């Protein structure tokens, strides 16, 4: 296939459409948010157009630092959990017959159709004292009386990993399904165990895919605000929960915008750092 350089307006058009969409639906709203984050908050009212740094000042405290730190840690933990679970699963899935693969992928897609609200309430019921799985443990004699397994950090993790796992598998699947199995076969022929083959051949070959997936799940999990509320205690609330509180319940748009801008910048910086470290390692084999 030969590709000519785009010359006429018609050649540029296919690119212009997504570019316009990106500007209208991403750049403009994000710009508005940055602008609002500098507006002056009117206590008990709304805001006036201005240029003040007070909203950022209010954010720069130990309290919000802790909440931000927790949000980042939570997102990172979810990303690692998801990839650790999804990678072997997807690898073994790609070794199965085509029909089995399709069935699994459809099942995973159907999980994606569940909203965050449904996932949250379903898990809070499953982990509850009155109707949850601890009743089953009592029935088989493993527990004396049913206990509440919610709200706590583990419940938040379970809910968020459950929500992000199908995405993780669907992102990993194309790379793994294209993987040339003859490398692993060659390693096994030379005497490596299948496990060793997996760790020394498959994982290094797909390092870029794994890093990209980690970043995707991290960013996805960073925006979570419903599951930490339903399944966690207040100390497990993410920055997104506090942003929602400010925007919706306190009508403090400037402060909410400042927090959101901060969150975006921090996550962009972390993603950039990850790519930088990954790139450098690649340059020095």
């Amino acid at each position, binding site marked *: 296939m030969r590709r000519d350089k785009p010359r006429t307006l018609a050649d540029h058009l296919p690119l212009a459409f997504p570019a316009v969409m990106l500007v209208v639906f991403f750049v403009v709203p994000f710009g508005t948010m940055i602008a609002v984050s500098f507006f002056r*908050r*009117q*206590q*008990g*009212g*709304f805001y006036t157009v201005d240029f003040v740094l007070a909203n950022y000042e*209010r954010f720069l405290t130990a*309290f919000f630092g*802790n*909440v931000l730190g927790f949000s980042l840690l939570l997102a990172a933990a979810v990303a690692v959990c998801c990839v650790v679970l999804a990678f072997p699963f997807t690898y073994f899935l790609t070794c199965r017959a085509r029909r089995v693969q399709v069935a699994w992928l459809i099942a995973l897609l159907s999980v994606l159709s569940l909203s965050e609200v449904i996932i949250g*309430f379903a898990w809070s019921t499953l982990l*509850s*004292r*009155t*109707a949850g799985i601890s009743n089953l443990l009592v029935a088989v004699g493993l527990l004396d009386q049913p206990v*509440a397994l919610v*709200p706590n950090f583990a419940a938040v993790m379970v809910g968020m990993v459950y929500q992000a796992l199908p995405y993780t598998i669907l992102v990993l699947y194309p790379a793994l399904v294209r993987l040339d199995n003859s490398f692993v076969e060659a390693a096994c022929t030379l005497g490596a165990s299948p496990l060793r083959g997996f760790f020394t051949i498959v994982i290094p070959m797909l390092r870029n895919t794994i890093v990209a997936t980690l970043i995707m799940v991290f960013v996805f999990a960073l925006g979570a605000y419903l599951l930490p*509320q*339903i399944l966690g205690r*207040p*100390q497990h*609330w993410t920055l997104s929960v*506090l942003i929602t*509180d400010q*925007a*919706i*319940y*306190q*009508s*403090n*748009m400037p402060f909410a915008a400042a927090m959101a801008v901060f969150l975006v910048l921090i996550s962009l910086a972390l993603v950039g750092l990850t790519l930088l470290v990954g790139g450098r390692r690649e340059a020095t084999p």
Partner: protein
Amino acid sequence: MNKKSLQTGVSRRTVMAAGLAGAGVLAMPSVLRAQDRSLKVGVYGGYFQSSFDEHIFPEFTKATGIAVESVAEPTGEAWLVQLEQAARAGQAPADVSMMSQVAMLKGKSTDLWTPLDLARLPNSTNLIPHFVNKYDDGRVAGIGAVAWYITLVTNTDTYPQAPDSWAALWDPANADKLGLLALVSNSFLLEVTAKTFMGGTEALDTEEGILEAFDKLAEVKPNVRLWYRDEAQFEQALKSGEIPMGQYYHDVTGLAAADGHPVRSTFPKEGGILDSGCWALSRASDKTDEALVFIDYMSQPAIQATMSRKVGTAPTVKRELTDLTDEEFAGVSSEIEPIVPRYDLYGERSDWLNQKWTELIVG
């Protein structure tokens, strides 16, 4: 190719012609007159909205000929933010809305509410005076729609004996058993603390008093299992006994009990929290006439009594004007002097209170 585009051209023209004809029909005076007398009314979505749609709005339309389109509003101040943003663009997602007192206060600071002419609201004389909500300069911003109580609620299976004081929230025996509202401006727990332990809500006049109340309130934290924003989340847990105690709305709890759920609502000896909603008209609405007819209609003692019976709210008109029996009145209210929220604080000190509150429950 040519043929295809010709075809779409024709069909588009047909559609346009049909559209024009339709617009013409709509523009005909007879149709317009019927369309003209309508009003979009915002009420809290869910149970509240369906009760109004079933019992209140059809009667209003029958009596006045004004059609009501109810709009589901979210709780909290989310609706206020939407109304304000829309009004800035000259739009009114609802003409009249039921607004909480804190939202009324914030809306007043930006002149969001169209001042109402009391002369055109003859039934407003029926109201208990403090339910006429005014701007600082005396203009009327809103008229009391309904009042409701937030009380101490318990699961009757877990607590055979009803608690009689808000102090039960602090009882170490209730560790990890409470569900409380998650926001300072809708839980009114500072007022509850002040009334229960500090002699009254006047204790919150000073910053020291407020900080003292926060300290006392911090002792409640180990007992709280759920700080809820979403009412359904707590209601379900209360019914099942998962979270057997907390603060909740007296009206909804009563209905759940009537449906056979093992729950009860108790007015503690310090009083229930009395909150209320006002009818307020967005400045972006051009339906002032219809809105005044609506608000006046809702201020009739008979309609207020109907709302008490069907929706479970307490009347905003003087009790003696209604035909509510003692039993019916006790179902929606109490003789115990209520805890009245310090709404003034949520205007002057809202950001400071919010910050302290968030640090209290998250930290």
